[in-house]
């Protein structure tokens, strides 16, 4: 693995959260170079693991403007072409308002405020559910 690739992976970690579900938190600024890096990493990992869902958590993204939103839309379109759906989590009220005001169409993209909501959405589509142990007693 070359140094550039290692640096890219360190800046943009991705991990398997569950069978068929990957998780990638994004922290900091999201410019077009970084968006391309994120897209490359997500596509490589989705291809290598055959994952069906990627949770992309943007809670740590400094600001979401129309350029960032367009990057996110492109990333989700790319993963979809591999048969892997992106779920966008970490949407804050400010981000939600910005997206509406900017007139950004997220299409059929699944968005949630919390990572747990994204995980639930993925589980639901995979026919899985989380139940309390007490409920099973």
């Amino acid at each position, binding site marked *: 693995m070359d140094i550039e690739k290692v640096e890219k992976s360190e800046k943009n970690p991705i991990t398997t959260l569950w069978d068929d579900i990957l998780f990638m938190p994004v922290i900091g600024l999201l410019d077009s170079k970084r968006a391309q890096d994120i*897209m490359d990493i997500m*596509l490589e990992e989705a*291809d290598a693991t055959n994952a069906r869902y990627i949770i992309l958590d943007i809670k740590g993204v400094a600001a979401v403007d129309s350029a960032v939103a367009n990057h996110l839309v492109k990333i989700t*379109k*790319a993963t979809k*072409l591999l*048969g892997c759906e992106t779920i966008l989590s970490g949407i804050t009220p400010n981000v939600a308002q910005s997206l509406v005001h900017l007139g950004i169409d997220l299409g059929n993209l699944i968005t949630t405020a919390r990572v747990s909501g994204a995980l639930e959405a993925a589980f639901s589509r995979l026919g899985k559910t989380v139940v309390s142990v007490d409920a099973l007693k």
Partner: protein
Amino acid sequence: MNSVLRETVKQLHGCAILTLPSDVDDELLHSLSCQFYSYVIREDLQGVVFDFSNLRTLDCRLAEALFGFAKAVRTLGPQVEICSICPGVASSLALLDFDAGEIVISRSLTASLDAIHSRSGLER
């Protein structure tokens, strides 16, 4: 089945698998599609899977033609899925703002066949 179809199409459990060759171009696509439409009608298929695994590069125009082909096949009746798009192709198409529309895309041929059979309520 004529030679172009024989080289690119296999039938499995009521589904046709059309494996696109790496050198697919407009001419080949035109010839293939004309023959494939008749084949789909004749065989009364449950599903059709377009396997993109051989394609390492794809420009937006050819992608639109291929997806258009898939959509046209779907209007003839069978369920249609596209599978095995490689990361490089996915990245290029996304950057070109390519819209796959409502065509279902799966990770692998197995996933496509499973999905078609699951929706049809058939066992493989």
